């Protein structure tokens, strides 16, 4: 079953057409990387999938259930209550967006307790276990501003995981980090991939995308130019545009 399915997504900002009829689906346990130049629409696609941006046209499905569909004229209509679908996914932002006034532990436990109405003690135990797994248990009582960028991003991954999502989205998770700190974040994502977490990663880290993904999607100008297994896309590139993009990255 598809965890995520998006069909014929179109999105414009004013006169600028950012997404031109894109369809993507992601299977359970699959790790998909989306690469492409700036302005290619990859972040917008992710924002449409995570309901931060509304599609102009197209359908969105989570776990086989329709979260948004087209009306007779082909415009996307969203239901009033989207929270049922928000529970399906987690999103890790480029700028972490941790809540600065909450401790690390409170960042992790607040949403499960106040949104999912789960038992606070149980949530806390789970959060501590996740922190231990990340080697961050001594940071439980620290505030985000006391952590390094890499630590903050790992905490924000844990915050998304604490909601037990079916699928995890990453929007350029290492772009705001020092090169020295990207490693620790990528290691965590890799570990999640090994645990068969379903993930969609928008990234500029080509070597990482190649190593970790089951499928790589190359986007440019609001369309999917090429997609396939990483060894196909990187090793046996078909499209001239993809070749050009990858060449620029090697230099």
């Amino acid at each position: 079953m598809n965890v995520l399915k998006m069909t014929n997504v179109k999105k414009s900002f004013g006169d600028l057409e950012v997404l031109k009829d894109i369809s993507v689906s992601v299977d359970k346990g699959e790790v998909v990387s989306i690469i492409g130049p700036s302005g290619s629409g990859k972040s917008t696609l992710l924002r449409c999938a995570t309901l931060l941006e509304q599609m102009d046209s197209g359908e969105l499905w989570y776990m086989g259930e329709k979260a948004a569909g087209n009306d007779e004229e082909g415009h996307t209509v969203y239901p009033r209550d989207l929270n049922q679908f928000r529970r399906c996914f987690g999103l890790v932002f480029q700028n972490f967006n941790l809540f600065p006034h909450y401790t690390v532990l409170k960042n992790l436990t607040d949403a499960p307790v106040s949104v999912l109405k789960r038992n606070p003690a149980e949530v806390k135990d789970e959060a501590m276990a996740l922190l231990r797994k990340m080697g961050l248990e001594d940071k439980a009582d620290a505030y985000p501003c006391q952590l390094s960028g890499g630590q903050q991003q790992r905490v924000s991954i844990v915050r998304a995981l604490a909601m037990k999502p079916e699928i995890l989205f990453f929007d350029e998770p290492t772009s705001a980090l020092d090169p020295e700190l990207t490693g620790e974040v990528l290691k965590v994502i890799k570990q999640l991939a090994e645990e068969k977490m379903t993930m969609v990663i928008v990234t500029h880290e080509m070597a990482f995308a190649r190593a970790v993904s089951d499928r790589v999607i190359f986007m440019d100008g609001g369309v999917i130019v090429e997609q396939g297994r990483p060894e196909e896309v990187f090793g046996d590139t078909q499209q001239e545009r993809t070749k050009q993009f990858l060449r620029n990255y090697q230099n």
Partner: protein
Amino acid sequence: MDFLNLLAQLAAGMGNTLLLFALTLVFSLPLGLLVTFGRMSTWAPFKNLGIKKEKERRLSGAAILADGDESLTQQMTRIERSHWSWLLAHLRRFKPVQFIFKVIIAILRGTPLMLQLLVVFFGPYYIFGVSLSASYRFIAVVLGFSINYAAYFAEIYRSGIESIPVGQREAAQVLGYSKAQTFLKIILPQMVKRVLPPVTNEVITLVKDTSLAFVLVYTEMFTLAKQIAAARTSVMPLFVAGVFYFIFNAVVAVVMERVEKSLSYYS
């Protein structure tokens, strides 16, 4: 002895000053938040007015242009339509609640507080013919101050809310927080921390503004000082009143600094 007497009299007037100061804060701080909500309202009831017709018109308009030569009447209707669509575009963007609160804030910040106090006190009689009891005098003073300060606080709150990175809202939304939860748990606490310095400014101004209550014959400290100064033909009482205000504001500054410090555990 004479000086001690002066101090005692002014200290007694300070009681009224303090009362007005405290009541104004109690009412205007929360009222300001409500005004902020009104000011930040994005409700636009005419948002989708005539969208469909517009689309059809645009198609037919394109046809006329393609034709090249249009008759005078065609030109006239086209110009008329463009005026109409200009009006329509403005109507669609019109946010009535926001507009009303913008006007209210403009009036409250743009006219003297002293005048506003007079309007609040005499308005009910001169505008509506309602005569109110003598105790309304005090209510009018507190009401006038509270409404005026709420307008200033509202704009300070708005600046605080708008300065919080949009990512905070987005993170909360993705985690499934409701709008009320997002505001109360994520936005408001961060806003409070950010607005403390400008709020302190307003609070200090309020301490000194209480002297304007004399227009409604509310005998706060400065009114007394002026009376004593006139009776003794001496500026000493006014000078002592200045010292009283200074001490009062020094206390306000220390308290607000403490509050700021208590919120400095994160940045």
